[in-house]
């Protein structure tokens, strides 16, 4: 019997080793360990043994059964692992194929730049104001020290609706409207559309966007103007950006200046972008004219302020290296989707 058990163990293990799939393995299990299995058969014969032989043989038979069961389980695990590996292998994709396209929306480049400027000023405690685009002559010109017949009206060819109503040529009128409704301290920017009778070309448009800025408080000086707009320049173009103030004239500020930033491409060395000057003009600014403060209902002896204006299209053209302003209003998806 002992020999018989040894033989069965060897035979079973050999067969288990040869099985290639789970059903064959199951057949092996049935043949050796099933109810009518060969090892089961031996165990059934235990009763015929002498009491002395019985425990010895019983122990041995159980050991053989255990060994075969273990071998079957191991083989089963291995076969299952192999099968899973095959299945996964069969599921292989070409992972280099493109993903399913998603229709993604894009913010307009002008809005992107506008958002950026708003964020910078909000960070410095500014509010955002608005004003009508169809405006009274009073707010667009008169209140800003540009009376009827003033030559500055010539430099901003104006679209008129009636003698007194026009399309605003600048966002500066928002200064007056804001001062009429707010007491100092004032820190505001007013972005918006403005209109001038300029025929369309690569750098002109009868409609464009400006951002007006106004700060009014006690003891505001040109040093504050410089500091504030230097911060803007650095946030827009990087920490090493410098600004340069050139005296200029705006009827509603005095002194007035135009502000250049050091060229963000060549850093002042001179390149086509800055026309070899090393500087690029981005802003007009100045100390709010005392008469303008007065018209806004603010006492110029107690308060002073500075104001500035910048063109959004110009900023966007520099930011994105766009060389033709018309692209912003043509809205070709191939253009819009680049931003």
């Amino acid at each position: 019997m002992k020999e018989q058990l040894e033989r069965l163990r060897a035979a079973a293990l050999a067969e288990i080793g040869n099985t290639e799939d789970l059903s064959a393995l199951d057949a092996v299990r049935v043949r050796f360990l099933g109810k009518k299995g060969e090892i089961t058969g031996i165990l059934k014969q235990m009763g015929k043994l002498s009491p002395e032989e019985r425990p010895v043989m019983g122990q041995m038979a159980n050991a053989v059964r255990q060994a075969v069961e273990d071998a079957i389980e191991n083989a089963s695990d291995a076969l299952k692992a192999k099968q899973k590996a095959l299945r996964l292998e069969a599921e292989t994709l070409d992972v280099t194929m493109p993903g399913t396209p998603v229709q993604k929306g894009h913010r307009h480049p002008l809005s992107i730049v506008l958002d950026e400027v708003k964020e910078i000023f909000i960070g410095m405690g500014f509010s955002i104001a608005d004003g009508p685009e169809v405006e009274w002559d009073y707010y667009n010109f008169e209140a800003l020290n540009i009376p009827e017949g003033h030559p500055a009206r010539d430099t901003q060819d104006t679209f008129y609706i009636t003698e007194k109503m026009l399309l605003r040529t600048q966002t500066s009128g928002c200064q007056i409207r804001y001062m009429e409704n707010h007491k100092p301290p004032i820190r505001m920017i007013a972005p918006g559309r403005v209109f001038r009778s300029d025929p369309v070309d690569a750098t002109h448009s009868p409609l464009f966007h400006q951002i007006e800025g106004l700060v009014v408080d006690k003891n505001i000086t040109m040093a504050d103007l410089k500091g504030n707009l230097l911060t803007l320049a650095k946030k827009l173009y990087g920490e090493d950006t410098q600004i340069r103030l050139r005296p200029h004239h705006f009827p509603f500020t005095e002194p007035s200046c135009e502000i250049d930033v050091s060229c963000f491409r060549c850093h002042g060395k001179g390149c086509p972008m800055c026309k070899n000057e090393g500087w690029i003009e981005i802003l007009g600014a100045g100390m709010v004219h005392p008469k303008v403060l007065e018209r806004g209902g603010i006492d110029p002896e107690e308060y002073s302020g500075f104001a500035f204006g910048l063109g959004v299209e110009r900023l966007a053209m520099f930011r994105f290296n766009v060389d033709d302003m018309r692209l912003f209003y043509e809205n070709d998806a191939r253009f819009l989707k680049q931003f």
Partner: protein
Amino acid sequence: MDLSRRWLSDYVDISGISDKEFADRITLSGSKVESYAEEGAGLKNIVVGQILTLDRHPDSDHMWITTVNVGADAPLQIVTGAQNLQVGDYVPVALDHSTVHGGKEIVAGKLRGVESNGMLCSLGELGLTVHDFPYAIEDGIFVLGEDCDRTPGRDIREATGLDDTVTEFEITPNRPDCLSIIGLARETAVTFGKTLKLPNATYGTCGENVRDYLHDVTIHDNEKCYRYAGAVVKNVRIAPSPKWIRERLRACGVRPINNIVDITNFVMLEYGQPMHAFDLRYLDGGVVNVRTANEGERITTLDGEDRELSPEMLVIADANKPVAVAGIMGGEYSGIMDDTTTVVFESACFNGVSVRKTAKKLGMRTESSGRYEKGLDSDGCRRSLDRALSLVALLDAGDVVDGVIDVYPNPKAQTVLDFCPDWVNNFIGISVDADEQKQILEALDFEVRDGKIYVPSFRGDVEHKADISEEVARFYGFDKIATRDLSGAAAGGFNEQQKFENLMTGACIALGCSEVATYSFVSPKVYDRICLPKDSPYRKNIVISNPLGEDTSVMRTTALPSMLDVVARNYNNRNLKEAFFELAKVYHPRGTEELPYEQLTLVLAEYGEGATYYTLKGKVEALLETAGVTEYDVLPMKTAASYHPGRTAVITVDGKELAILGEVHPDVLENYGVGTKVYAAQIDFDYLYQIKNTVRVYRHLPRFPALTRDLAFVVDRNVPVLTIEKLMKAAIGDILEKIELFDVYEGVQVGPFKKSVAFSLTLRGHDRTLTDEEANAATNRAVNAAASVGAILRA
């Protein structure tokens, strides 16, 4: 304003200052340089030569062989086709490898077999005209006169005075005084710390009295003419001006004509005061009347145009007729001619606004009107007139008659301001002591004494202490002002409306729409293009009185046409499938006494593969959800202009229209040349803002299980799904969590004019697990409710 460096140097010493340094520093002190260029910069290697020999070319009937002394060891042999040369003439010689005007290169070569080592040049080849050298001829070699440096070998630019530098300034409208050489010389002097030397304006007269010739001058309109000064020059000797005048005029872009005309232009450029000269012969009655034009009066101006004048226009008239449009242009016949013998010189000051309006109305802006428009200094008239008369004497262009008729009824009061250096320092944020401020102001010809500042008459722009602060600041240096950060906290940020705009535009982008930006003005034809009825209130719009063209002549009352333009452009550019949005303003007129209502509308459009009415509606629903608007009605709209009658809906809230959405009408698409279906929505953004609810409060996630029941009905096809949904919703009550339409079918199985609609109901109790009985009862209520519109439960 073009500035001649040579001319500038007459009044201020700028030797040793390079053109670039000059441009940079004067820009930073407030006179902005646009560009600067050397005259004759394109001319290379052209020198003065003297003709030594002149022989006929043996093989040509018109060419000459010359030998020319160009200051070198040996004379050069040059072949020329010109016929105006003589031995001994001095001529411009373009040497081997030289460049003439226009960039043409000259190299040595052979002409009909004879060696030619260069080229003799005409005026044109130097970029000059006979106006610059009246004694030269146009189609021949330029034979240099005595007014040139005729040293053989001398560079031609130096020899002819074509070596000036011209600097172009952008002069701001507040500084008409800087539209002059003297004005810029003053700025230059203060910028570089030099002394300003003013020109001589003294002259001798031939006696007699001005009134013997010019009997009287009368100003009839003191509002439009502040001052009129006239003088007379007799025995006028018309001749070309000397070279020093001609070259200064040329550099400033003015064509030399003759001594008298050149003097008026010279003084205008020098002092910024326009001058005019009349031939006394044509001044009827020998009088000048400065008056407004009579109705229907006409004048032929110097440019040969016959012009009709209107009664608000100021003219210079004699006893009978206008002889000039005041401050703008003279009359043709009263101008200076070769046989003119007696001349009236005018130096006057006119109202800038009046000149501007007249010039605009007549469509003629001149050097003169451009200056008057900015408001000239009436005190300067006499000085300029004296300067002109001194030039007449200097050039011996005539005999100056004694006396000037100077009508100046209301002399301008001098502006006097307080001298307050501390205020200036505090305002600018600098500390420049009083002495230094005084120095700057005095250098600019302000007088400072006894705590007062006396403003020079030519600085009409200075009328407030803030203006004084600018003078101090710009010469102290804007670059020396410190930078300071704003101090103190301030509560900034977006307001409620701006936050909502950001939220909604962000949502549009998340829904796959790209933002567009379109013009606010459109063509009045767009209303036809979008098939608006003739009586539509949207046709009532704001009209621009002076538009650039019809395409941009009215303010839009709807942003749909702008969006359709965008769609059409993209469709034509083969962008096959796109979705766009714009948060656009539209403008509704409210009469002439009130500004229009500027309404914000949110416009969406999509087209291309996969786009349907329902994909668009899905976007609109998502936007409403973003805005927190959940209670709204959707009604089919058969009569919306611009939209498909069967595929359009309006969304209303509380009975008021919030949005319209649908397929764009095929007629409209045809008008826009779009060959594919386009779906568009217009949302009243102002109303949406009013009813928005963006406050979010957490609701518990469900604690009890839901039960679902599917119901399919057969119903007439024209019964809207929303009607059935609403009925079921009302019938079931608050245990209804969701109704989902999951199938719609039309076909033979359901019969003609019928449709099958299938809903999935999700039922849930917020405080308990629903029983089957409750769910079934609710379902029965729904089925009964649906039956009221003829919906029959499918077996």
